[in-house]
């Protein structure tokens, strides 16, 4: 989670690829977002590019995978998390990554190649009332 996100490519308000001040790549997809190290993002990008080839059931990359379900939908695995995609959404995601990749690579290069720090808590967070003290009544 970061204070500054530079949107690199987007389909709509909730489907986007962005780069934050930590050098992490943010893949937002409706009600959630992945936060990826540059190398992890590249692996996902490679995997998605392979999905354009015909006749596959499962594609595997390092730390990620793509499964075609029997019903024609897809599961994109990154680490221990999964994103469920309709067929049309997979194509959208592939196009999104293709569109963003050159710019992202440029930004990551300017940011020091693979330099990256895990986004932590929002620095703009506020303390909630009573934080640190509570009544034992």
């Amino acid at each position, binding site marked *: 989670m970061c204070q500054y996100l530079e949107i690199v490519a987007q389909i709509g308000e909730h489907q986007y690829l962005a780069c934050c001040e930590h050098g992490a790549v943010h893949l937002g997809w409706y*009600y959630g977002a992945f936060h990826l190290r540059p190398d992890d993002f590249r692996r996902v990008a490679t995997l998605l590019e392979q999905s354009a080839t015909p006749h596959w059931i499962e594609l595997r990359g390092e730390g990620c995978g793509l499964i075609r379900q029997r019903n024609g939908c897809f599961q994109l695995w990154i680490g221990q998390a999964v994103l469920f995609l309709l067929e049309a959404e997979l194509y959208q995601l592939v196009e999104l990554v293709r569109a963003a990749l050159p710019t992202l690579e440029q930004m990551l290069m300017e940011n020091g190649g693979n330099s990256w720090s895990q986004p932590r808590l929002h620095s703009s967070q506020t303390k909630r009332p009573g934080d640190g003290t509570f009544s034992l009544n």
Partner: protein
Amino acid sequence: MCIQFTTLAESNDFRHILQCEHGTLHLSWDLVTLYLSASEFEHLLNLLERGTRLVEPAKISEPPCILSYKAQGYFQLWIRNFALNLTPIDFLILVDLVRVAWRAACEQPALEQPSVSAGDQPPMFQRTVAASAQVSFSLN
């Protein structure tokens, strides 16, 4: 875009639950952040509580969440189109995180309706939680 956050619960730097100025709850778990309205978050809590009582493989749901306890001995939690695979220990950590966050959210002053799930959500954060023998200290 959300710019103002309040920490409701934190397990470590990568696992925490925040609330933004829109009232939406941001559940971060390692590589993923998921966005839930207050009512959805309450459903998640209810589902996780039910999950703690599962002793054999099963699938239970509280829309928009589905929890499966797999025969292989891990939990799979779906929240809409995202899923998390959780070891039993991670599952308990998540349950605790969500419990703490919900208590904290209930102590928050009333906020605006969440922006992510527009609709007929109930008024947020206006309910009170009665103190009970189940709770180690008064939430009032």
